[in-house]
């Protein structure tokens, strides 16, 4: 947390130093014009061009180059900040030698009265605007003393005007001390802002989930990339939830909240992705968020790729059915805890097939990482079909309905827990091609455990 805050503060300071460098680039050139009127009083031979080109070449250009480097350079922020601190002080030192310090050293110290105000303003502005964070503030102050303030005092002393010398020391020290204090205060405010920013990020992570958080905050943009392949899609829905909600809204709300939390935890544990929640329903995908780069361009590895794909689907299958077991178990436990003895049930449908993962929607407005494909609809229809199966069986209970294809990657002992149901008499809505579906009833927590034991 602390290092993240420091990084943010430094990043912020470098960004402001960049803007400040560009501003100074313009200001130094402007000063070439504005300083000419008083400098000519001390050096009648000076012409405007002489004053201008030196400031452009030795002040404006380096400041613009520093600004450009801070903006485009790839070095770390630490290096950039050091470059800016040293660079700024160097440029300032060189600027003072352009028609100012030589005039003082030639016995006309009064010129200091003309330029001193500009120096003091610039120091103050620099501290307030850039306000280098933490120890960089001290480094900057020390560099400024070594490279500009110290030499300025020496030059002012050599100028041999005690009043101007004292004035320079007093004003400079007062400005720098105030600047350091002001910068310190600004940093503490920025620190709080950084803290809130990090807190906001952490809050956002809880809503985004582990996958989107990684994609956004860990810069894993490949997770947003479109991907097409086989995946398991499970749809879960609480039965008669509207009726239960009407009967006991507060208890239902609490139950629902705990159930959703459990689904979220279990899905994450089994590497699934909650694609959507609608009312009391979940659409959960398994096997779509893995690192599965496209290797199809490589010739000669098809057999190996097929084997890798088979193992991926076996893994996704195990994750899907284990997650469903856990979700049903947790659902029944919570139902028993909140509505003791009440017949509250859950339905699920599972299908396996080709889906496409991609960012959908308007990227300027609302976009989401979505999964589309036939299995999304089919799993939903299978979940609905569970009601028909229960009515045929003449019983109530929680039910998992799966397509025959979804069972292909499950070990035989686990497959045997699912019973066959012919759909010829009453086809699955929109999927009349499914001649057979498989189901498993999970009536209560006790029954659920029994089924799991049976499944192995």
């Amino acid at each position, binding site marked *: 947390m602390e290092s993240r805050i420091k990084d943010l503060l430094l990043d912020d300071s470098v960004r402001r130093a960049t803007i400040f460098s560009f501003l100074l680039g313009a200001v130094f050139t402007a000063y070439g014009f504005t300083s000419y009127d008083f400098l000519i009083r001390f050096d009648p031979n000076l012409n405007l061009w002489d004053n201008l080109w030196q400031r452009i070449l030795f002040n404006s250009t380096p400041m613009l180059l520093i600004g450009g480097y801070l903006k485009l350079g*790839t*070095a*770390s922020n630490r*290096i950039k900040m050091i470059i800016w601190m040293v660079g700024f002080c160097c440029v300032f030192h060189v600027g003072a030698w352009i028609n100012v310090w030589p005039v003082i050293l030639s016995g006309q110290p009064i010129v200091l009265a003309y330029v001193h105000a500009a120096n003091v303003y610039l120091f103050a502005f620099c501290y307030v605007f850039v306000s280098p964070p933490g120890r960089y503030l001290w480094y900057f102050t020390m560099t400024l003393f070594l490279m500009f303030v110290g030499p300025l005092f020496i030059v002012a002393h050599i100028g041999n005007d005690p009043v101007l010398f004292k004035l320079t020391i007093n004003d400079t020290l007062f400005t720098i001390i105030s600047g350091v204090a002001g910068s310190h205060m600004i940093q503490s405010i920025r620190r709080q802002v950084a803290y809130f920013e990090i807190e906001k990020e952490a809050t956002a992570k809880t809503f985004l989930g582990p996958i989107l958080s990684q994609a956004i905050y860990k810069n894993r943009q490949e997770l947003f990339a479109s991907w097409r392949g086989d995946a398991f899609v499970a749809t879960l829905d609480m039965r008669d939830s509207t009726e239960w909600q009407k009967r006991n809204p507060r208890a239902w709300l609490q139950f629902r909240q705990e159930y959703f939390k459990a689904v979220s935890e279990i899905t994450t544990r089994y590497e699934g992705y909650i694609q959507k929640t609608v009312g009391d329903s979940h659409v959960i995908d398994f096997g779509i968020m*893995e*690192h*599965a*780069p*496209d*290797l199809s*361009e*490589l*010739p*000669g*590895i098809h057999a*190996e*790729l097929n*084997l*890798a*794909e*088979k*193992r*991926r689907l076996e*893994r996704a299958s195990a994750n899907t059915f284990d997650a469903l077991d856990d979700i049903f178990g947790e659902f029944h436990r919570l139902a028993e805890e909140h509505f003791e003895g009440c017949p509250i049930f859950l339905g699920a449908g599972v299908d396996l097939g080709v889906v496409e993962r991609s960012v959908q929607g308007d990227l300027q407005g609302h976009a989401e990482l979505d999964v589309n494909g036939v299995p999304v609809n089919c799993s939903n229809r299978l979940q609905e079909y569970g009601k028909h199966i229960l009515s045929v069986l003449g019983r109530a209970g929680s039910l998992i309905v799966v397509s025959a294809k979804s069972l292909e990657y499950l070990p035989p002992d686990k497959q045997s827990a699912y019973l066959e149901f012919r759909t010829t008499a009453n086809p699955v809505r929109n999927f009349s091609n499914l001649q057979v579906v498989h189901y498993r009833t999970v009536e209560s927590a006790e029954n659920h455990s029994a089924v799991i034991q049976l499944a192995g």
Partner: protein
Amino acid sequence: MGKALIILYTLLEVGLPMCAVGFAAVIIPKSSVWVNTLWILMPISYVVIFPFVCALLSQFHSRQVVPGKFPRDLNNPAYKARRLYGFCWTSLYYFTPIFYFVLQIDLFKASVLRLFGYKGSTSITLYPDSWIRDLPLLDIAEGVYFANKCTLGSNLVLGTGEILVDRIKIGKQSTIGHLAIVGLGTQIGEHCEIGIGVAVGLRCAIADRVRIAPTCAINHGASIGAGTQVGAMSYIGLRAQIGPGLEIPAGANIPTGASIKTVDDISKIISSETASLISERDRLSKGIFNHGAPPADASPIVPTDPDAPKYG
């Protein structure tokens, strides 16, 4: 057209630095001091001008160096651009003494690499024999160390007459060991150590702080989680997934598509490998002792070479 440009670029790369030096010889005063100075500065001028000429010529093509799969045909615009860019780069790369000087002076190195379209950090350690190319596709962070003779294979020529090109990303303070190879499309995290002679395949994902010991082979599309250590001479199969914080023992053989998330998974893989080796040994020995010869389907363990020395 492409071949004509290559000839033209050759003339420019060789000729321009020579012309610059020759021009200086014509315009300088003919006093002995100036002539002697020119003689001293001549090789230095050539060393400085040559890389910049190559880099400036590559500017015409560096934007067309993009990921993808292209036929290796100069009539294909993308391949032609790659070919000309590659020509400019290799003109410098294979001119080892000059490339060596380029890499020794930070400002020189940064300027030349940037002109070749490189966008990563220039605070990296690179040797003249560390093979890199397709600089616009390399995303190398600060402090990365490339040992001698390592290879960043950002392109791959396929037997189909095509070339496959992709980006390579390496996080800060990572080390690519001596003779190590990193395939295209691979992403390596921060503070990673890719050991001596490790071959990392195409489009692998290696997270932060991963240490891969010498001579491992990481097959295409494999992913390794943060903080995992892979023992020496291990093999990670195609698209295998290794979770974070694990220690893969030396000589491990992680099969294609396997997912290793816990220490138990490692034990299972290792024990199943051992079991399969024991079963294979038993099968072979059973065949030999029962019938006097190994079974017909047994693969030869030792190649039969009549000239091989005989021991015992």
